[in-house]
C-alpha cells in the first residue's frame, strides 16, 4: 500500500522533558490510524509536529512525500488538522467560516464553492449554516469543524479527539463520516483518542504511545491476539503496564 504519512524517529524535547522519543510509524492511503495513550503520553505533541505546528527536535516525517522539516508549506497543502476541543470564529456564520477556511486552501472562487458544497453535504446543517456559530450546539460546531477538515479532500486528515465532549448520537455520526470518507474516497486519517470503543470501531490500525514512546503498532485483531486480550482496552492496559515495568 502507498504510504501517505511516514514518520521516522520523531522526537520532541521541551527544555529537559523528552515529550516524544524516537517515534516511527506510517499510514497508508485510505487508512485510519489511531494514536492511543494516557494523558501526557505524547499524542498531541506527535500530531502537532506532523501538522507542522511544532518543530521536531530530531527525526522527520513526510506527508505525500513532503518533509515536515524541509517543506512545511507543501505539507500543509496536503493535510488538515482538527485540534482537540477546537473552536470556530463565533461571530461568523457557518457559511462564512467555511468560505474563509476554503479561501486559505484555494484562491479560485469556483473551487471554494465546491469545498462549501461538499462541507454542506457532510455536515447536514442546512439553513443553520446561515446562523452565527455562537448559536450552535457543541455537536453542530463539531460537525461544522469536521466538514471543514475534510472539504478540501486532504491526503491526510489529522483529528485530535474527534468526538470529545459529544453525546453518543453525534459521536456515532462523526465516526460513520470518518469511515465513509476513508473507505469510499480513500482519504487517510490520523486520529488520537482516549475512547477505546471508538478506536476499535473506527480504526484500521492503532499505535499505543506512553511516556513519549510508541510501544506497539498493528491491526486491532493482531494486537488482541498477540496480547491475548478480548478487547482493545485490555490490550492498551497490558501494553502500558509492560512499559511501566520496563
Amino acid at each position, binding site marked *: 500500500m502507498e504510504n501517505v504519512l511516514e514518520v521516522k524517529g520523531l522526537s520532541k524535547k521541551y527544555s529537559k522533558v523528552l515529550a516524544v522519543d524516537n517515534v516511527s510509524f506510517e499510514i497508508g492511503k485510505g487508512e485510519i490510524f489511531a494514536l492511543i495513550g494516557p494523558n501526557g503520553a505524547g499524542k498531541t505533541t506527535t500530531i502537532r509536529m506532523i501538522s507542522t505546528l511544532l518543530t521536531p527536535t530530531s527525526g522527520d516525517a513526510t506527508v505525500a512525500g513532503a518533509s515536515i522539516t524541509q517543506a512545511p508549506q507543501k505539507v500543509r497543502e496536503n493535510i488538515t488538522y482538527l485540534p482537540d476541543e477546537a473552536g470556530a470564529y463565533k461571530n*461568523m456564520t457557518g457559511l462564512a467560516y467555511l468560505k474563509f477556511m476554503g479561501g486559505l486552501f484555494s484562491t479560485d472562487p469556483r473551487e471554494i464553492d465546491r469545498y462549501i458544497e461538499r462541507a454542506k453535504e457532510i455536515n447536514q446543517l442546512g439553513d443553520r449554516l446561515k446562523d452565527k456559530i455562537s448559536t450552535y450546539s457543541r455537536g453542530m460546531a463539531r460537525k461544522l469543524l469536521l466538514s471543514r477538515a475534510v472539504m478540501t479532500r486532504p491526503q491526510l486528515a489529522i483529528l485530535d479527539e474527534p468526538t470529545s465532549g459529544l453525546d453518543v448520537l453525534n459521536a456515532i455520526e462523526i465516526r460513520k463520516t470518518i469511515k465513509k470518507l476513508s473507505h469510499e474516497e480513500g482519504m487517510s486519517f490520523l486520529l488520537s483518542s482516549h475512547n477505546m470503543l471508538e478506536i476499535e470501531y473506527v480504526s484500521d490500525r492503532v499505535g499505543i504511545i506512553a511516556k513519549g514512546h510508541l510501544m506497539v503498532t498493528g491491526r486491532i485483531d493482531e494486537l488482541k491476539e498477540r496480547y491475548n486480550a478480548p478487547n482493545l482496552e485490555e490490550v492498551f492496559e497490558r501494553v502500558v503496564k509492560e512499559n511501566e515495568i520496563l
Partner: protein
Amino acid sequence: MKFFNLLRKELKELINAQMIASLAMIVVIFMVFGNVMSSTISEAVKSESSVTLSDCDDTEFTRSLLKKLEENNVTVRKIDTSADGDDYVSILRKNDLKSIIIIPRGFTEALDSGEKPELITATEMKSAALVDSISDTSSGGIDKIKDILSDEIAKRSGITDEELENIDSPLTLTENTVISGKSAKISTDAIIGRVMMLNEILPVIIFVLIVMTSQSLMGAISNEKIDKTLETLLSAPVSRVSILTAKMLAATIAAILNAVVTMVAFSAFMAKAAIDISKDAPDALNNAAVNAQNMIPDDVSGNLSGMLTAQGAMRELGLSLTPADYLLVGIEMFVTIMICLCISLILGALVTDAKQSQTILLPLMMGVMVPYFISIFADVNSLPPVVRGLVYAIPFTHTFSAIPNLMFGHTGLFIGGLIYQVIFLAACMYFALKIFNSDKILTMSLNFGKKKKKKGAPAEE
C-alpha cells in the same frame, strides 16, 4: 489572494457593530460636551453685561450708580430684597437667580464718611465643575461698580481721570518672549496656555491609539489561542508571516480609524469652544481675551485668552508646526503604533485563558501612563539625570514630547527619540517574529505562582 482573505476576516472581527457604535458615541459625547461648553462660555460672556442687583440703600448716589452702570452697557435687573435681610438662600431661590449683587443700607453713608463701602454678593454654586464656576455672573458687574466708585472717589478728591488711570495701573507692561532666537510681544503665560492646548490634543489621540491597537491585536491573538482557532489557522497552507501581517494591518487600520474619529471629534469640540468666545464677546478680539480673563478662573483663563491672542505671536516665534513637522509627528505616531502592535503580539502569545487576557496589558498601559502624566506636570529635560534617563527609556515618552520638542526647536532631542523608538521597534519586531515563527506561539505561557513541574512543557495532552 489568501492574504486578503485573512485581512478581510481580521477587519470584520475588529471593525464590528460594537466598535462603530462606540465611535459614534465618542463623536456624540464630544459634540454634546462641545455644545455645553460653548453655550456655558457664551452665557458667561453675555452675563458680564447683565446683572441682578438689589439697592437696599436706595440713595441718590446708588440710583446714579445704577444709571451709570446702564450707561456702561450693563443691563441691570433691579429687585428688592430689603425684606429678606441676609437670608441669601431664599433671595436666590425666590427670584430664581444664580447670583446677585446687593448694595446694603449705609453704602452711601460709608462712602461719604471716607470709609470703604460694603458690597454684598451671593452666588449659588451647584457643583465644583469648571463650567459652573465660569458662569458666575456677578464678577463682571462688580468690576464695573468698582470702576464707577473709583471715579466718584477720584472726583471727590480732585483727582483727574488720567491721574486715576495711573494710580490703577502704575506701569505699562509690555511682555516679550524670546524662543530660539526669535522674539514676539506675548506673555509666557499665553504661550504656555497655547502649547498646553495643543499638547492636550495629541496625548488623547496617542492614548486612544495605544489602547485600541493593543487591545485589538492582543485580543486577536489571545482569542485565537483560547478558542484553539490559531492551531487550525497555523496548519493551513498560508505562511505565518501572512497571518501575522494581516492581524497587525487590521489592528492598525482599526486603530487609525479610531484615532481619526477621535481627533476630528476632539478638534471640532476645541474649535467650537474657541470660536464661540470670540463670536459672542462684545468687543474686538483683543477685548474678548481680556473679558475671558475676567470671567474664567485663573487656571484656565491663560489658555483661553492665549488661544485668542497668541496665534499671530506664536507664528512669529516659529511655534507653529510646519507641514514637515506634521510629517515627522506622523512618522513618530506610526512607529509608536508599531511598537504597541509588537508588544501586544508578544503579550497575546503569553495568554492562555480569558482572565489573563484582561490583565496582561497592564504593563503596557503603565508604560503609557507614566510619560503621559510626566509630560503634563513637568518638563522631562528638567528632571534629575537618573529619573530623566529612566523616563526616556520608556519609548512612549518621545511620542508625548514630540510636538513640544519640534515647537521649541529641540530637533536633536526629537530625532534622538525617533531613532531610539526605531531601535526599540526593531528589537520588539525581532522578538515578535521569532515567537510567531517558532513553537513559542503555542507553548509560551504566564505561570506566575504555579509550581514548575515540567519546565517548558505545554500543559495539554
